[in-house]
């Protein structure tokens, strides 16, 4: 590791002042599960590391059906929290797929979102959930929709002096859910990850359908066209398969050392179908 200074501010204002002073030369340390590997491999060379784990940003709360998660909520809390299980069970399923047990012990929600790996589980889940990220800097506060937050590989709408403080997730009370992922080895990032949410109205037709994918583009994406062909329709297998087909057709995933774009695209179609089918069963109460 290259040398750097270490600061552990005890208040949000102190942390934000440090980021304002050092801007691009500072890196924020939360759980460290993405930053420390980059430091170990000397891929990141910050002048200052600002450890924010002493800040009071670890709360889990429910407010008018909305789930409010502090940026320092750790992945294992998403797996274990009763409030998450009750108000946003898809998040528990997504969190279980993250890295390994050690990553989940330390990794944080805000850290995963700010790191913005295009294949990561939580960015895809937040994209499906239409989450809103509360962001702070020394000069102000703002809210960014998940769909606008991710702007490219490891790139977000955050300015260098901003940090994520909280994530707010709108209620999805009647939604069935599923997360489908294919990874080469347990603990790897998925080649493709699909998050599906489906609700069914009293006539048994699909009311709301949401489909988000990770690993198929430079950022998590919603399959809006596939969602459109599901809304108002009966949740039968043929319709689900057709929606998955539409999602697949509109993707043009990149190739890399692990999988070709064509293979990722094929995989995306299969995983979309499985995720939607399972989310439908879940919404109908048959699972």
């Amino acid at each position, binding site marked *: *590791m*290259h*040398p*750097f*200074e*270490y600061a*552990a501010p005890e208040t949000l204002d102190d942390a934000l002042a440090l980021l304002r002073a050092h801007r691009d030369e500072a890196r924020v*340390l939360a759980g*460290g*599960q993405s930053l*420390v*590997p980059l*430091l*170990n*491999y000397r891929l990141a060379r910050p002048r200052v*590391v600002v*450890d924010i*784990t*002493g800040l009071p940003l670890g709360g889990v709360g429910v407010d008018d059906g909305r789930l409010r998660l502090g940026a320092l909520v750790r992945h*294992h809390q998403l797996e274990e929290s009763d409030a998450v299980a009750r108000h946003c069970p898809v998040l528990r399923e997504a969190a279980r797929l993250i*890295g*390994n*047990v*050690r*990553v989940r*012990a*330390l990794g944080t929600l805000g850290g995963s979102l700010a790191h913005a790996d295009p294949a990561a589980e939580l960015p895809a889940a937040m994209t499906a959930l239409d989450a809103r990220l509360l962001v702070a800097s020394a000069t102000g506060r703002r809210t960014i929709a998940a769909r606008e937050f991710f702007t490219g590989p490891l790139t977000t709408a955050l300015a260098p002096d901003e940090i994520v403080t909280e994530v707010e997730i709108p209620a999805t009370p009647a939604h069935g859910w599923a997360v489908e992922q294919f990874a080469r080895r*347990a*603990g790897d990032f998925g080649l493709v990850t699909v998050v599906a949410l489906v609700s069914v109205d009293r006539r048994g037709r699909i009311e709301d359908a949401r489909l988000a994918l990770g690993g198929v583009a430079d950022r998590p994406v919603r399959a809006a066209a596939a969602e459109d062909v599901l809304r108002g329709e009966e949740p039968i297998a043929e319709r689900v398969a057709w929606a998955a087909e539409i999602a697949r057709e509109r993707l043009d995933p990149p190739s890399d050392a692990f999988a070709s774009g064509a293979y990722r695209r094929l995989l995306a179609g299969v995983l979309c179908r499985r995720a939607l089918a399972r989310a439908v069963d879940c919404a109908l109460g048959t699972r």
Partner: protein
Amino acid sequence: MIARMVLNGRQREVEVRPNQTLLEVLRDTLGIFDVKQGCDEGVCGACTVLLDGRPVSSCLVLAPAVRGRAVVTLRGLERDGGLHPLQEAFVRHGAVQCGFCTPGMLLTVLAFLERERYPDRETLRAALEGNLCRCTGYAKILDAVEAYVRGEQGDG
């Protein structure tokens, strides 16, 4: 700078540089060689320690960020100067070959059993999926853990 921790039950203050990991401090400064250095990216599990009771990769924890918390390494499992019963089960079942993954396996298993007392083999397999072993093929490790869970003693 000074890093504080409760290491294997003892309060310690150690002089560290900000760019040192907990793994480096344990091995290079404190001479605790039961913590192994593997991949340096949190994938292999060789450097597992318990931080406030949860398994973490000590290669991915900056030393100053330990902030006084409790760190347990393999030697923290010692019972009256002897082996922990899980270690004995590993010996009995041939679950140790080169031994490099063993400390991480033992700590991960014990932390997991704190939460789930009587897991089946599939659950154990999933609990250990973040700990790589290149010798045993895992079968004997799982045998050893199952025997320990069943409370088997002796030379079985």
